[in-house]
């Protein structure tokens, strides 16, 4: 019997090594898997490269992972979101590296990783300083930049419902980066508000099929707070 549901956070985080590239779902604090991030802090892997849209809000979730010194580098599109106090202090002190990517390029680089595409050309950022060092090529008279797939060692994602095969649904705009990150990592761990019986999820509504998911933890935390 396949059962990807783990009972403890320690099992969920088992084997995550120092130096890992960790994809963290969410847009601001919505869809951000805070319980898994706390689990990762507890687990203790260091020298991490985190890929996330934002750089953490206040002192919880991703910001706590940064504040406790586990992250060497962050790859994101919008570090200057609401209340990025922890990131800004670390960045000013030279204690964290930052790589800024256009949001769509970041999403597509992970989509490519999950789809077995090593690189692709995009029109985004042509003629800007974010094109520095990137190969430019013309197709049908328009210029494009070469971007490479962005693969994670680990993806931490937040779902709404899950079953023991790892099939997942999402809630409203909390979907965001979670489905694409789930495809792009060697180890994908999901936290879910609701665990349901196999067969209970409407197959038409499963947004991430279990083939992309390795472990599921039940985290019924209730409602998120936008801060």
């Amino acid at each position, binding site marked *: 019997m396949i059962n990807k549901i783990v009972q403890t956070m320690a099992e969920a985080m088992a084997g995550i090594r120092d130096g890992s590239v960790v994809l963290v779902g969410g847009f601001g604090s919505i869809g951000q898997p805070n319980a898994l991030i706390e689990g990762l802090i507890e687990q203790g892997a260091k020298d991490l490269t985190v890929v996330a849209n934002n750089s953490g809000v206040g002192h919880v979730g991703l910001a706590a992972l940064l504040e406790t010194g586990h992250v060497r580098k962050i790859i994101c599109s919008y570090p200057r979101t609401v209340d990025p106090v922890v990131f800004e202090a670390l960045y000013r002190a030279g204690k964290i590296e930052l790589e800024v990517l256009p949001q769509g390029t970041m999403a597509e680089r992970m989509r490519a990783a999950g789809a077995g595409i090593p690189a692709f050309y995009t029109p*985004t950022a042509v003629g800007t300083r974010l094109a520095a060092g990137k190969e430019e090529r013309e197709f049908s008279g328009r210029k494009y930049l070469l971007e490479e797939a962005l693969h994670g060692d680990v993806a931490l994602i937040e779902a709404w419902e899950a079953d023991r095969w790892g099939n997942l649904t999402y809630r409203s705009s909390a979907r965001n980066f979670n489905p694409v990150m789930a495809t792009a990592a060697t180890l994908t761990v999901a936290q879910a508000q609701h665990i349901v019986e196999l067969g209970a999820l409407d197959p038409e509504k499963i947004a991430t099929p279990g083939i992309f998911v390795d472990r599921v933890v039940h985290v019924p935390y209730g409602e998120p707070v936008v801060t």
Partner: protein
Amino acid sequence: MNKAATAYKPLSRVEMAARVARDIPEGWYVNLGIGIPVLVADHIPPEREAIIQSENGILGMGPAPDEAHINRWLINASKLYVTLRPGGSYIHHADSFAVIRGGHLDLCVLGAFQVTENGDLANWATSENDTTPAVGGAMDLAAGAKRVWVVMEHTTKSGDSRLVRRCSYPLTAPGVVKRVYTNLAVLDVDAGGFAVREMVEGLTLEALQTMTDAPLRLAQS
């Protein structure tokens, strides 16, 4: 300031948003950037069905909810609570940027620091050594939408023109802006540079030119 400059009233942020909304027809798929652009949605009457996309995976975004109807999983690109209109849907981020980059949006309305007479857009960083530059979806939107319109104040707080010959700020995308709505005027960007379509009442082209770095001409109507 000459006497002519005191005889007109610049538009407020809300009035600028309402002016943009007037030009968005039924049936367009539209992305609205952070700042004044998101206010545009409040001025498109619900019976005129323009479909608003939000980069975080919403098609058919509706107005802000009242306190009793907040869905805490439903936010827009500014991280504020919004609603979903009947017919709306959710997509993941890679699909959302397929919508944006793939040329499926009829229009993107963005804020800006500077726009040039050939449509160059600068709206993401204020200097080459900006400490924490935050690009978000701006470069994807600028490169991918069928039309890019900018809504912004005509000048900075210190009176410097935002309509310029050449951007002093880092570019978001070269040659993409087709129209600019300011608190003083509506301008097309075409092969001849900035063409003034309309001005606030009481303002003359000469007075507008004194506040504008780039050369202006009246649009052929």
